[in-house]
């Protein structure tokens, strides 16, 4: 892995992604946890750019930093416990061992089969643009059914969430 813009970007975004992830699971303060989550997801958006999917990166920032962060912060403020939760963690050691084991299994199971394969030189030069995605989304041989199902899902989520969260007494 020689030193160039992409590898520098990869290292920087890895630090963002993993550091943010650690921040999320370790901070006691949920507001700071949200900010850490956004740092982590910003790193993921950076990966998308490195992987030539800038549209997904922009959408990632729009959806997570623009909307989900705000929503989580609103929820944190709404559910602030009067009695602070004393202990941060439960079952800390078993959880740690379990997730470490999972990480090792994933690492071994995922990297060994593809190690060396898919050399960087063989990846396609030409990548799909947003226009290709748009055409495929509404193509009857493409993704038109999932496209409409996504709309149904969002509608259901919005109606359901409003129904649950609405305060009838107010």
């Amino acid at each position, binding site marked *: 892995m020689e030193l160039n*813009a*992409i590898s520098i*970007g990869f290292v920087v975004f890895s630090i963002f992604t993993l550091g943010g992830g650690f921040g999320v699971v370790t901070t006691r303060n949920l507001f700071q946890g949200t900010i850490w989550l956004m740092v982590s997801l910003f790193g993921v958006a950076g990966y998308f*750019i*490195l992987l*030539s999917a*800038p*549209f997904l990166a922009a*959408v990632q920032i*729009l*959806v997570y930093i*623009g*909307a*989900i962060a*705000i*929503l989580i912060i*609103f*929820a944190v*403020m*709404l559910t*602030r416990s009067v009695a602070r939760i004393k202990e941060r963690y439960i079952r800390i050691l078993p959880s740690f061992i379990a997730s470490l084991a999972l990480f090792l299994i994933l690492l071994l199971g995922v990297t060994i089969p593809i190690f060396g394969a898919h050399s960087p030189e063989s990846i396609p030069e030409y990548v799909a643009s*947003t*226009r290709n*995605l*748009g*055409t495929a*989304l*509404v*193509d*009857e041989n493409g993704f*038109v059914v999932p*496209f*409409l199902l*996504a*709309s*149904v899902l*969002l*509608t259901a*989520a*919005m*109606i359901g*969430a*409003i*129904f649950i*969260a*609405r*305060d009838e007494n*107010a």
Partner: protein
Amino acid sequence: MNVLNEWAFVGLFAVLAPVFPALPIVIAWLFRPRKPNVLKSSTYECGVETIGDTWVQFRVQYYIYGLIFLVFDVEMVFLFPWAVAYNEMSLFGFVAGFLFIFLLTDALFYAWKKNALDWK
């Protein structure tokens, strides 16, 4: 310039953009007077002692607005590609996009009828 060089430009811009506002703040840090005292650096509350915690309870309406915004924002994931491909698509493609928007409008209509859009 290829695609990644463009993003290198944006990345460099993103690194430098916070530096511009940071410069005057750092300069101010060099020159400004420093006379802190307990009263000055206490939390502002119209001159009286702060009562209780900062974290007052908020109304659920904030969450509802955030929620509706989230759904419409996520909708953009599909609507932007749809708009970009608009000129090339057939009537079928337009109808699919129309249905997509129409379903979401239903949800907005539901919220309206349930008075979830009122500030209360």
